[in-house]
């Protein structure tokens, strides 16, 4: 649930990057953090293990400017991807307004993507939210690996595995080079803001 402050005309929108471990969620936020310094209100917060894996979440507040006189403050979160951390993944999803599902396009990660998406579905249900209603964007990440001869799942397979029923907007991306990172963010922000506006009417 986004939070709307009518006195100061501020809308806070919570966007969560979700997906299997090592798929590139943190890398997405790091790219945004580097590229949009001016719009970022403060330092990126990362709660991670000694081995540099996300332990609880990454957090990055992002200033969108004004829409219809309201100041839009975007709060970007990632979840920890490792299987054992589902309890904390669930906590981060509380009150989410929009989700980017970061799938790992590497061939060997095919099963992990599907399992992670199924768990997202269950986790949202525990908050009485539905994966079919919440603003969602699919990001097929690491497409740069193709150039390095590493087997990548074709777009048609990714779409069939992850997006045949959801039919949400999707983008191929490379978080490490920044390809389509901003486009993904713009897409999920606009879907989330539209959905919030609808709820307000």
């Amino acid at each position, binding site marked *: *649930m*986004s*939070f*709307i*402050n*009518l*006195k100061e005309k501020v809308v*806070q929108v*919570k966007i969560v990057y979700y997906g299997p471990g090592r798929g590139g969620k943190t890398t997405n936020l790091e790219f945004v953090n580097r590229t949009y310094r001016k719009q970022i*209100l*403060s*330092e990126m*917060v990362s*709660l991670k293990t000694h081995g540099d894996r996300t332990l*609880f*979440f990454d*957090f990055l*507040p992002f200033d969108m400017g004004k829409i219809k006189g309201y100041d839009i*403050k975007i*709060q970007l*979160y990632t979840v920890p991807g490792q299987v054992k951390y589902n*309890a*904390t993944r669930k*906590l*981060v999803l*509380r*009150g*989410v307004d929009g989700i980017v599902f970061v799938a790992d396009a590497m061939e060997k990660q095919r099963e992990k993507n599907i399992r992670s998406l199924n768990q997202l579905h269950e986790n949202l249900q525990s908050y009485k939210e539905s994966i079919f209603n919440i603003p969602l964007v699919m990001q097929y990440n690491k497409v740069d690996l193709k150039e390095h001869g590493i087997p990548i799942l074709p777009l048609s397979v990714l779409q069939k595995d992850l997006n045949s029923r959801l039919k949400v907007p999707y983008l191929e991306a490379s978080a490490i080079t920044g390809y389509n990172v901003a486009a993904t963010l713009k897409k999920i922000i606009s879907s989330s803001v539209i959905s919030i506006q609808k709820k*307000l009417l």
Partner: protein
Amino acid sequence: MNYGIVSQEQLEQIDVILSDKLIKLGVDCVIIIDMAGNIITAKDNGESKYDVYSFAALAAGNFATVDAMAKLVGEQEFSLLFHKGQESNIHFSKIDDELLLISMFGQDISLGFLRLNVVDVVEKIRKIWEKE
């Protein structure tokens, strides 16, 4: 209250309560957040400069974690959450299932005194919500 949206009037009333009951006593900074990590309102004594957005995200995560631990050991909740430092302290108090009141204060206020006032503030804020 229609959760998710707070009217200007409600916020003004809440800000007055926070100022009168906590800031005037010497509390450095008071923040009300929801469990998703959004800031409902923040008041300070004009001197403290906290990064309230990051603070809210971390505080919501911290509270949610402790809450989940309470459930694991069979408690309804750990109602008091308090972090003590050399110079500053942080006190968490649940307003209702969705909202948290967080006070940051120095060594010149005792925890007991703060708690008394927080209880009072929480009651008053609940009344404002109920009026809706």
